[in-house]
């Protein structure tokens, strides 16, 4: 296990005031928040920042961390050296959970964090919403994300997902338990929609019912298709003669290839709509999406004498009336 320098993570000095720490955290959190920053790695960085703040914002935890940190540094250990919390290091400190109203959470902390605060923090926070007397309480609702392919939205799919769920053991302590859930993804699902699985959230207390599990659907980026709500877009490269003279070409759709008639005189950027070939309707009465085929024109290279002559004869056939830049002329408006 590596020693984590939480001060370095937040970019603050060891003697930084609580205000400095808060300010540094807010700035970094805004920058790396996965809802705001879609770059890969943002989420991992955000977790590190959150964990560092979790410890440093709380004077009790910060003091405990500093004590471990200074003992660790005195040992002459480099940052790469294996870290083990000294035995009995936490005597004299009493942690009061996370200090918010969430109760304990399925949040992923590092092994380092767990070794220092894991059990103490959990045990403290476990007294939150779930341990009030012998009342029958409904379990909490949980959230997770599922990645699917666009094709899955056309056909429906089954996914086996791994969840880490907080549950209570016999002593009433919160522990994380792994479990696998088979989920049916219905046909017609769209990016960003949620599935609600009743009774698959946190367990209830007493005779209280279990909570629900909400799964947010996210599509993998597709090599060919772009998705806009229920509509799907695909680029279709055409040869100039296909676009000019019309043609019949095979176009891929997530549903399989279709034969599409290209009208003569199709310019680049022209959108051909395949009605109802977007993401299908989830239920009768709801419209299906459309598939838009966007025309692109690919010029053959003028590499050979023959193709150069062909371009030359196209030039004379078009005549001097053909001016591709006609729109660029004529004043300010």
């Amino acid at each position, binding site marked *: 296990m590596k020693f984590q320098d939480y001060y370095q993570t937040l970019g603050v000095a060891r003697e930084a005031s609580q205000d400095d720490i*808060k300010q540094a955290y*807010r700035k970094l*959190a*805004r920058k790396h*928040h996965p*809802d*705001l920053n879609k770059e890969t790695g943002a989420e991992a960085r955000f977790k590190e920042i*959150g964990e560092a703040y979790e410890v440093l914002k709380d004077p009790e935890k910060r003091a405990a961390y500093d004590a471990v940190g200074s003992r660790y540094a005195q040992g002459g250990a480099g940052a790469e050296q294996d870290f083990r919390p000294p035995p009995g290091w936490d005597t004299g400190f009493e942690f009061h959970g996370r200090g*918010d*109203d*969430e109760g304990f959470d399925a949040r992923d902390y590092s092994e380092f964090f767990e070794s220092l605060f894991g059990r103490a923090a959990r045990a403290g926070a476990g007294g939150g919403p779930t341990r009030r007397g012998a009342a029958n309480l*409904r379990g*909490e*609702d949980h*959230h997770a994300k599922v990645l699917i392919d666009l094709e899955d939205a056309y056909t429906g799919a089954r996914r086996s997902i791994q969840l880490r769920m907080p549950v209570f053991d016999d002593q009433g302590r919160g522990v994380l338990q792994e*479990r696998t*859930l*088979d*989920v*049916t993804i*219905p046909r*017609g*699902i769209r990016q*960003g*929609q*949620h*599935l*609600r*699985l*009743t*009774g*698959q959230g946190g*367990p209830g207390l007493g005779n209280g019912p*279990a*909570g*629900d599990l*909400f799964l*947010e659907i996210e599509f993998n*980026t597709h090599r060919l298709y*772009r*998705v*806009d*709500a229920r509509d799907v*877009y695909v*680029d279709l490269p055409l040869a100039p003669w296909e676009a000019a003279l019309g043609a019949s070409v095979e176009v891929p759709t997530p549903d399989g290839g279709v034969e599409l008639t290209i009208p003569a005189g199709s310019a680049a950027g022209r959108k051909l709509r395949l009605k109802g070939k977007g993401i299908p309707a*989830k*239920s009768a009465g709801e419209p299906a999406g459309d598939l*838009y085929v*966007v025309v692109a024109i690919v010029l053959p290279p003028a590499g050979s004498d023959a193709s150069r002559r062909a371009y030359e004869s196209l030039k004379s056939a078009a005549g001097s009336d053909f001016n591709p830049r006609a729109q660029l002329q004529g004043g300010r408006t």
Partner: protein
Amino acid sequence: MSGSMTTTTVVDDTMEFTLVELCRAVRAPQEQVRVWVVEGVLTPRGETPEEWRFAGTALRRARLARTLSRELEINAPGVALALDLMDEIEALKASLRRLGIR
């Protein structure tokens, strides 16, 4: 855990949340959701909080609001502004996608 009782539903605009259900689903206290409604973050139908019905798509918005206020410590008017700007960015990204720019 038994899977036999589970029903799977798609959370879309054909379903609605009451105030209590929405609060439970996003783990936010009722007072906070009320403030979000006042600030225009969420627009349920119905007059009084007891009659409020939130469209299924409000779940995503409410989740974001909770994240912004909890993890970034943004106040309710700030959350409202941030969500409006995020909607705008999403709309711009959608038009870029339609044009073939990722």
